[in-house]
């Protein structure tokens, strides 16, 4: 869109003053008359069966109002995680919940409940689970199989299986290389053997990508009460419209019975995608106790029930031509799926590898192993970040050995335009990207970062310090299609845009209304965005996950705003003659072309829409919109001129966004300490909608990747199956002192041709970019042989340098 007034321009989001004055209310900030508090009883064992529960002493306590156990919950089907369990699959899994007049009483009641547990076999290491005599995380199996027939998406339903690898297959493990027994899934394309045969350099490396908890600043607290048969729930979720079906299912009620309020969410990073199953606990306790219930989740609770990234151990074999071109790539992934799932990060990792490295031939094999560790969910760049970790060290090593520049070897292998990727689909065709401008991003970054200047001194030791530079491209799927939009232009002359996505601070929840303002030439100060409360009527919107919101909802609101525009034109033609196409919009009027002072004001047209009724004021709505949108439209019918539409725009290809990360590090070879000196992220994310928020996303996402490269990890006691890293001080997220003095972000701002507004999402791609770029910079400084796992902590660097070989245990998870 040329000559835009709002798209591509900064603005102050309408929620900012409420946030900065402390008036904005998150889930834990709500109160209700007679509100009780809930506390959870968590499993002390990593795998056990509840034989019996004696709650008599707790129930006898004054102030204890209700106890909820797994027996009170609806059946969600086989192998599906529920809010409470009688067979805990990880230490920390909630077994029951108590509601009492205050938290101290509830906590005291929890202490007085006697749960008789039968200990069961367990494992916290996926490779251990695959050994010939290894323990299974569940009594019914140890791995998730390939998706069931008809299953689509990264988390398609899968069967539980039991698979063990032989001792012979484990022989490689002794050498620190990932053993490769029977996978559960695989695909390939091209001639892999021919590729390796014609290669000038073949590398084969194993790399361990760690798991980390999401730990958003706001834990997954919820407060719930019932009124007139409806559940009112204040919760912390990434999505609003899309959390309703989950809450309904978990509570055993209809979606129409749920009123969900979530105006502000304190981060999620994939851990609160469509809410989280434990949010049903205060809802069901509230029903049982007949009073509102607040369930505050502590930071330690959050470390158990708050989700984590799937860790992966990958073994990658790559054949390179002399110029660095990748001829063959063979990737084997053992994914630690945790206790529930099934997770699909391993599949996303395989596709991501195929996209960003464009190997001429590729094979992907994987197995997703259950362990008795807390449940995983998608964490900001789920799969692609892991692919960056497993594969980048090989690319960097090859570049060094072949004498090819780090940026050039990535450029030569980058997808261009509508590049193909992955295996052939059922129709015989391979998937295509909608667009990719990675090389433009790499060129731009190389210049801004003064790559060649830094290259001149990288690797040179000065005293105990040695600098290194690194680059990596983080990819991620970045857009879905087919969602709805709902807005009303009212007689007060204002445009009210209903927004059904979550408010995570990325501002996409409001950015979507910028598109409507643009199409309708509406002054921004006359646009009201209604978000965060399904009681106000919100349209069916995408999940606020997977970097899809900006793409999906700019499309939907482009459709909805054009629907409103058409109705304005039709009303003007009805009243003033001519055909609708004779009319255009400007200065808050619909008027004949060339006569901006004539026609009808928006306020007049809104009034006329109400008089005309039918489709004009929302009493008739399109057939193809979602039932939730229809319900929301019914709430707004008659209030003004309604714009309501489903995104039916075509899309040819799969939408991906990319961020190229550039990093410079300084390694102290006497202490092993790695310091990030400088960082730049360059986005290839389509048309920029909100520049300031976009750059914040690139920098913030990169910081998550940087933290994964340098310091964050999960640690378990393998003997007892218990989590050690339960709090911030031992999960070690990045602090304000860990960022470089100079941190930059920019974007190439080239529109995606397969979406009307040109915008793609940005949330995830920077994570893999930051992760890969920093790992590569460390390798550039001290050599690629120093580490084979992340984070690259001082002890790893120091031990390996001292002993002139890699010293760390190469395969064990969660150390």
């Amino acid at each position, binding site marked *: 869109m040329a000559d835009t007034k709002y798209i591509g321009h900064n603005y102050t989001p309408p929620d900012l003053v409420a946030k900065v004055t402390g008036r904005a209310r998150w889930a834990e900030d709500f109160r209700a008359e007679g509100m009780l508090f809930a506390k959870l009883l968590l499993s*002390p064992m990593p795998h056990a069966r509840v034989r019996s529960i004696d709650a008599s002493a707790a129930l006898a306590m004054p102030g204890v109002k209700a106890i909820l156990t797994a027996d009170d919950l609806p059946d969600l089907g086989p192998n599906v995680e529920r809010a409470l369990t009688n067979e805990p699959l990880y230490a920390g899994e909630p077994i029951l919940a108590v509601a009492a007049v205050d938290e101290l009483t509830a906590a005291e009641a929890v202490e007085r409940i006697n749960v008789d547990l039968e200990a069961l076999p367990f494992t916290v290491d996926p490779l251990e689970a695959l050994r010939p005599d290894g323990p299974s995380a569940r009594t019914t199996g140890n791995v998730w199989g390939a998706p069931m027939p008809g299953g689509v998406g990264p988390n398609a339903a899968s069967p539980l299986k039991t698979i063990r690898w032989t001792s012979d297959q484990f022989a490689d493990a002794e050498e620190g290389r990932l053993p490769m027994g029977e996978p559960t899934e695989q695909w390939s394309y091209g001639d892999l053997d021919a590729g390796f045969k014609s290669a000038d350099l073949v590398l084969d490396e194993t790399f361990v990508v760690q798991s980390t908890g999401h730990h*958003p*600043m706001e834990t997954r607290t919820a407060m719930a009460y019932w009124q007139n048969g409806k559940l009112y729930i204040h919760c912390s979720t990434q999505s609003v419209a899309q959390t309703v079906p989950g809450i309904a299912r978990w509570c055993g009620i209809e979606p129409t019975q749920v009123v969900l309020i979530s105006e502000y969410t304190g981060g999620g990073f994939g851990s609160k995608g469509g809410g989280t199953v434990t949010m049903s606990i205060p809802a069901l306790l509230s029903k049982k106790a007949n009073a509102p219930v607040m369930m505050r989740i502590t930071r330690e609770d959050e470390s158990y029930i708050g989700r984590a990234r799937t860790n992966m151990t990958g073994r990658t074999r790559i054949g390179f031509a002399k110029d660095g071109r990748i001829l063959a790539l063979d990737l084997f992934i053992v994914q630690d799926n945790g206790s529930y799932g099934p997770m699909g990060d391993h599949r996303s990792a395989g596709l991501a590898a195929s996209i960003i490295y464009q190997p001429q031939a590729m094979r992907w094999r994987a197995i997703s192993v259950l362990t008795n560790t807390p449940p995983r969910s998608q964490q900001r760049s789920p799969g692609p970040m892991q692919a960056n970790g497993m594969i980048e060290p090989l690319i960097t090593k090859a570049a060094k050995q072949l004498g090819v520049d780090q940026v050039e070897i990535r450029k030569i292998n980058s997808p261009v335009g509508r590049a193909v990727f992955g295996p052939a689909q059922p129709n015989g065709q391979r998937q295509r990207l909608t667009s990719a401008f990675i090389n433009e991003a790499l060129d731009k970054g190389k210049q801004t970062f003064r790559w060649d200047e830094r290259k001149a001194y990288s690797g040179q030791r000065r005293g105990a310090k040695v600098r290194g530079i690194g680059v990596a491209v983080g990819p991620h799927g970045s857009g879905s299609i087919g969602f709805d939009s709902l807005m009303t232009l009212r007689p007060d002359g204002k445009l009210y845009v209903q927004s059904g996505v979550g408010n995570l601070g*990325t501002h996409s929840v409001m950015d979507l209304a910028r598109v409507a303002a643009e199409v309708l030439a509406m002054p921004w100060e006359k646009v009201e965005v209604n978000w965060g409360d399904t009681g106000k009527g919100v349209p069916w919107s995408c999940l606020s996950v997977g970097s899809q919101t900006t793409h999906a909802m700019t499309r939907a609101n482009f459709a909805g705003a054009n629907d409103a525009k058409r109705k304005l034109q039709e009303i003007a033609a009805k009243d003033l003659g001519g055909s609708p196409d004779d009319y255009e919009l400007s200065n808050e009027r619909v008027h004949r072309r060339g006569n901006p002072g004539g026609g009808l004001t928006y306020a007049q047209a809104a009034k006329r829409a109400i008089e005309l009724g039918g489709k004009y004021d929302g009493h008739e709505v399109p057939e193809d919109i979602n039932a939730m949108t229809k319900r929301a439209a019914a709430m707004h019918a008659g209030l003004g001129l309604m714009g309501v539409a489903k995104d039916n725009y075509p899309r040819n290809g799969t939408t991906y966004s990319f961020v190229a990360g550039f990093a410079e590090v300084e390694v102290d070879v006497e202490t092993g300490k790695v310091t990030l000196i400088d960082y730049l992220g360059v986005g290839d994310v389509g048309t920029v909608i909100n520049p300031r928020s976009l750059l*914040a996303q690139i920098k*913030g996402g990169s910081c998550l990747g940087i933290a994964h490269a340098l310091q964050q990890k999960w640690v378990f006691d393998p*003997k007892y199956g218990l989590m050690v890293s339960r709090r911030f001080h031992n999960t070690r997220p990045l602090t304000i002192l860990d960022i470089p003095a100079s941190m930059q972000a920019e974007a190439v701002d080239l529109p995606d041709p397969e979406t009307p507004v040109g915008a793609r999402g940005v949330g995830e791609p920077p994570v893999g970019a930051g992760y890969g770029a920093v790992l590569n910079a460390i390798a550039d400084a001290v050599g690629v042989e120093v580490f084979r796992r992340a984070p690259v902590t001082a002890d790893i660097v120091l031990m390996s340098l001292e002993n002139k070989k890699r010293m760390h245990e190469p395969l064990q998870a969660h150390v």
Partner: protein
Amino acid sequence: MDQPENSHAPRPGDAPEPSDTPRSGVTRRAFIKGVIASGAVATSAAYLFRTSGEIFGQTSAPGSVERLITLNVNGQMRRVDVMKQETLATTLRYKLGLTGTKIGCDRAECGACTVLIDDVPHYSCSVLTHTVRGRKVQTIEGLANGDQLHPVQQAIVDEQGFQCAFCMSGFTMAAVGFLKTTPNPTRQQLAHGISGNLCRCQDYDKILTAFMRGAEYMRRTT
């Protein structure tokens, strides 16, 4: 940790002898010892004082502190009923309705609950309410003067300093407190001044930019 004598919560020690060869060689005793050694016990009540009933403050024993006290919060004298083990964060949020102060970890790790006590930033999750009697407490709600934002708040709005903003209140109070004593900091000094606060959206670079602007606005207005 103290346990009530009549408690029957399923601590690891209550685990039955592993019967069906759960994990070779792990006896009940070894499990307990290992759990103690690793310090890793799954408990939901970890942040509460887990004591037996009589010192919950339900009764005022002779010599114990008064429960009904007066606090100076945001320039107002507020009468409030406070238990002896109650933290300032809890009092502010649950007794005085000041929910702008957030609880992120409840253990002095994240800084989301930072407030000013006599102009000095403190983690309110780790301050007992009884210790702030006679002192001036300022929270995020007390920063603005009517509709007139505090210069640091205005700077956050102008620079769009935060994303999800759950950490914003604590960061802001930490920055305001630091800038009172260091009105003209370098970027690095300011980063050190507010390094007791965590953000998980993590555009720390923009947070610093916003607070540097806040410092500039404060210098202009004072």
